[in-house]
């Protein structure tokens, strides 16, 4: 008996190792490129997918066109020109700036236009076009403080904000040695930090800085005075490695844009959008943004709850099973999922599983990840409920000649449901809040829309407050409904 147990332990251990090795392997798979068919592939698809992080006006940002949310800006117009020259349609995928290059490598997008500078480090993992725009670097400061600062060297001993993963972060790290840097993903969050005195300046491209200064009377900008070399001043388009044919074709379009000085025109029209955006910064004006976000948040949660309860029940039964080959996989699943952050699970499903399934939609990936995560927690809740029914209840049923299965169905489970109902309700409510993590892969849930409104209105706090109140109203209403159901059940 003892030997057999050890054997099982070893088996499980090696199963675990195989699982980890598999995950590790996924990370090292590099797509094989026998021949460069990047251009041919786009033409065959008839569509080119552009990845961007639309929180960076005037390069890319979200505005309302005819009542619909749309990504606009200089980069979008450059991409439109490219698509036109290729004779294909343009599709835009939104995601966090940090996720853009991963999306390229995993072929979620064909090109990235997101005010990206072709640094040496980036060139190691992706290909770049010729630069299509050259910008100076500025530092955004509070207007009343403008006279305190001359250039980057005036910030010694102070804190400046930078967008994580950006060229500006790199420059600040290298050339602003005595200055503390605070990295945030969103420019809108950086602006908010500046206005609430958490940082003293924001390193940003001049065009971006000008856009914020023009739309927010509390801000001003100064020249950063960085020592820039070569390509690092320009903005270019990123492609997956080994896309020479596509890059060459795109460079021709860029040459045309440069020859006609079209970027100037693009910036001007972006400015027009920005002006209409800031004309009406009342949150009511943006209710469609929030409404869409609420819809997605509720939809994700509802689907995840249903799948979570079904799978959770199965995993709970599995964990309670005396058969080792059912018991241990269930235990492993539950422990693994509960022992890793939901954020990483979402990224793993979207990017990791996405390597095997190229066109995995972000919404689908998000729902699957959230549901699989919830299943583990629900399984533990259900197991706890079953465990908390006194064993005497089963014994009494068995002593009357009832089978184990019958005792479970008629005596244990009805009691367990009553016990777990409150915890299950809590899980449901926390899922509404936690599902917000899917915004990192570009699912347009409430958090994502909040970012969009921030970017569109240049207002940091108001959209946060609105989203917060919306979340509260949803969860509060839901907890009332669940309480009522619980009370009704106790009376039965």
């Amino acid at each position, binding site marked *: 008996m003892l030997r057999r147990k050890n054997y099982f332990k070893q088996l499980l251990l090696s199963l675990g190792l195989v699982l980890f090795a598999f995950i590790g392997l996924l990370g090292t798979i590099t797509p094989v490129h026998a021949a460069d068919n990047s251009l041919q592939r786009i033409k065959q698809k008839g569509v080119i997918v552009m990845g961007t992080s639309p929180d960076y006006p005037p390069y890319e940002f979200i505005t309302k066109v005819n009542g619909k949310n749309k990504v606009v800006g200089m980069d979008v117009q450059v991409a439109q020109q490219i698509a036109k020259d290729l004779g294909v349609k343009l599709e835009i995928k939104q995601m966090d700036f940090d996720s853009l290059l991963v999306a390229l490598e995993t072929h979620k997008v064909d090109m990235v236009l997101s005010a990206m500078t072709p640094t040496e480090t980036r060139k190691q993992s992706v290909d770049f076009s010729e630069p299509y725009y050259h910008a100076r670097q500025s530092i955004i400061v509070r207007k009343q403080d403008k006279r305190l600062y001359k250039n980057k060297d005036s910030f010694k001993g102070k804190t400046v904000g930078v967008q994580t993963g950006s060229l500006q972060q790199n420059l600040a790290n290298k050339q602003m040695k005595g200055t503390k840097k605070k990295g945030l993903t969103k420019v809108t969050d950086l602006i908010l930090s500046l206005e609430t005195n958490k940082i003293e300046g924001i390193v940003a491209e001049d065009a971006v800085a000008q856009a914020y200064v023009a739309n927010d009377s509390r801000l001003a900008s100064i020249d950063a005075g960085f020592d820039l070399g070569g390509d690092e001043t320009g903005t270019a388009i990123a492609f997956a490695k080994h896309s020479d044919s596509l890059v060459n074709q795109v460079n021709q379009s860029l040459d045309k844009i440069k020859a006609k000085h079209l970027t100037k025109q693009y910036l001007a029209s972006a400015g027009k959008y920005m002006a209409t955006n800031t004309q009406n910064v009342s949150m009511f004006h943006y209710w469609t943004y929030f409404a869409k976000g609420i819809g997605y948040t509720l939809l994700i949660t509802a689907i995840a709850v249903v799948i979570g309860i079904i799978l959770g029940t199965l995993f709970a039964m599995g964990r309670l099973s005396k058969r080792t080959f059912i018991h241990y996989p269930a235990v492993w699943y539950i422990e693994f999922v509960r022992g890793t952050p939901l954020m990483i699970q979402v990224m793993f499903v979207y990017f990791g599983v996405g390597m095997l399934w190229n066109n995995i939609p972000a919404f689908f990936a998000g729902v699957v990840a959230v549901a699989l995560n919830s299943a583990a927690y629900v399984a533990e809740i259900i197991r706890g409920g079953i465990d908390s029914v*006194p064993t005497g209840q089963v014994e009494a049923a*068995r002593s009357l000649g009832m089978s184990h299965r019958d005792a479970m169905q*008629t005596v244990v489970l009805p*009691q367990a449901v009553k016990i777990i109902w409150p915890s299950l309700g809590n899980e449901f409510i926390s899922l509404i809040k936690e599902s917000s993590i899917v915004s990192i892969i570009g699912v347009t849930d409430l958090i994502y829309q909040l970012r969009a409104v921030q970017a569109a209105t240049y207002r940091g706090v108001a959209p946060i407050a609105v989203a917060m109140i919306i979340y509260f109203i949803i969860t509060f209403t839901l907890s009332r409904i669940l309480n009522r159901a619980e009370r009704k059940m106790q009376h039965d």
Partner: protein
Amino acid sequence: MTEMLKVENLTKTFGENKVLRGIDGTVNSGQVIVVIGPSGGGKSTFLRCLNLLEKPTSGKVSFEGTDLTGLSEKALDDIREKMGMVFQSFNLFSNMNVLDNLTLAPKRVKNEAEAKAQTHAIELLEKVGLADKKAAYPDSLSGGQQQRVAIARALAMDPDVMLFDEPTSALDPEMVGEVLKVMQDLASDGMTMVVVTHEMGFARQVANEVWFMDGGNIAEKGTPEQIFDHPQNERTKDFLSKVLAQ
């Protein structure tokens, strides 16, 4: 008198702990056996081995001529129908009212019709004096009432033998009497019973035979008069002197 239960060299070990060290005994039809002895002496484990709620480590348990130790779970379910059990902590199904507690097993195990099961249940509730409580939920009943319902529930299956596992130990003193009364009535109706209890008065009045258990063995067996008035074993004497002195 026919042999109903027969136990041969029964042992039970939990890990390193030998709880039963070779029990032998016979329960004849219509007999009331009362098992007494100090706590931790293996009385409850012995009783739970009789319907195999506890699996014996070795030895034989025969019920109406069938050895139960080798049976499948499914075959055991059929046997347990005929062996009613009453627990120290009542174990009424807390998600059902009194009537449903009584009718559940007859309906699900014996496929009895609702009406028939209910008529039978109400008869039994009248017998234990609780017909007016048929719609009540267990948590609204006193301990004594719950235990009487539990007895009625076991009787609803028309068992051949009733096993009582310290049925009055969890009760407030003023409720012990009503439960013992029901058990006494049952005994005078001729029910075969095995009762583990600390109620010496009940043992003396109702038992045909008293088994004294200590340290995993049956140290002494006899009529109530033999055990209570002329105990032979030193441990029996010691136990009784402590219990009866109270």
